[in-house]
């Protein structure tokens, strides 16, 4: 199965890159753009056919390495 994983800074934690992009969008005339958050997107092939097992594995990967849960949150989908 393939896991598509998104890691972003938690809401409430300053995202300097997001702020810079938000500012740039504003300068370009996109006055309707706000609250830009920058994150990471990762794809992982998980060698499991059972969805529950794959789900548990991906969750463990996120908790252990892919996200720092002190400042980041993650979400993923399995296909």
């Amino acid at each position, binding site marked *: 199965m393939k896991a598509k994983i998104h890691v972003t800074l938690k809401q409430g934690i300053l995202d*300097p*890159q997001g702020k810079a992009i938000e500012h740039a969008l504003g300068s370009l005339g996109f006055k309707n753009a706000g609250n830009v958050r920058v994150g990471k997107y990762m794809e992982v092939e998980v060698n499991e056919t059972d969805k529950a097992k794959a789900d548990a594995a991906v969750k463990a990967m996120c908790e252990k390495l892919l996200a720092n849960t002190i400042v980041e949150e993650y979400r993923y989908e399995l296909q």
Partner: protein
Amino acid sequence: MKIGVVVFPGSNCDHDCQHIFKDVLGQSVEMIWHKETSLAGLDAIVLPGGFSYGDYLRTGAIAKFSPVMGLVKEFAKGGGMVLGICNGFQILLEAGMLPGAMLRNKSLHFICKDLSVKVENAATSFTSACQPGQVLKIPIAHADGNYYTDPVTLAAMQANAQIVLRYCTPEGKVTPEANPNGSLDNIAGIINAAGNVLGMMPHPERCAETVLGNDDGKLIFLSMLESLKQGKKPLQMAPA
């Protein structure tokens, strides 16, 4: 004393640390490759600055799983002194040996310059050679030094005097303007509750001999050696 300097792929301040301890302070130094499986005979360990594993994913995120880190954790649990400088500090955070995490500098810039830091706690094993409130001029060189932790942990660290170094003006005033990177509470360096693991973003090894025009950083290393001499045990901190 025998000091171990851990070398990760991408460490680049390891030889500076070796130079200070060996050539400037006359100690024995062992370079510890990150795949090392024994830390026997070492009195203190330094995790040096650099870009371990290219800073891939997050600073220190991959280094924390290096084989040597399990030994470093055991060493610290047994009361051994561990100093993490810059990337070494980031690794200590990722490894959970110190609380909190590093965010990108508020300005998004990589900042490399001399800064003033105030010794907020001069009773630790890493700062005992400093005067309380002393202002040290030490350079920083990082893009991810914006320290963050949750309010409960911050309050506990403040109450327990675990915030050892804070960015300040040259006169010693801790102000928002003196904060280079957005770090919470102007934090430049923190110590664990047990008092034997210190992480700091400034680079004392880059200013520890007079020939370089500044030896303020030497105080950190002298403090460590003095503490080791006094019975090889870190000074006890107040319980958390």
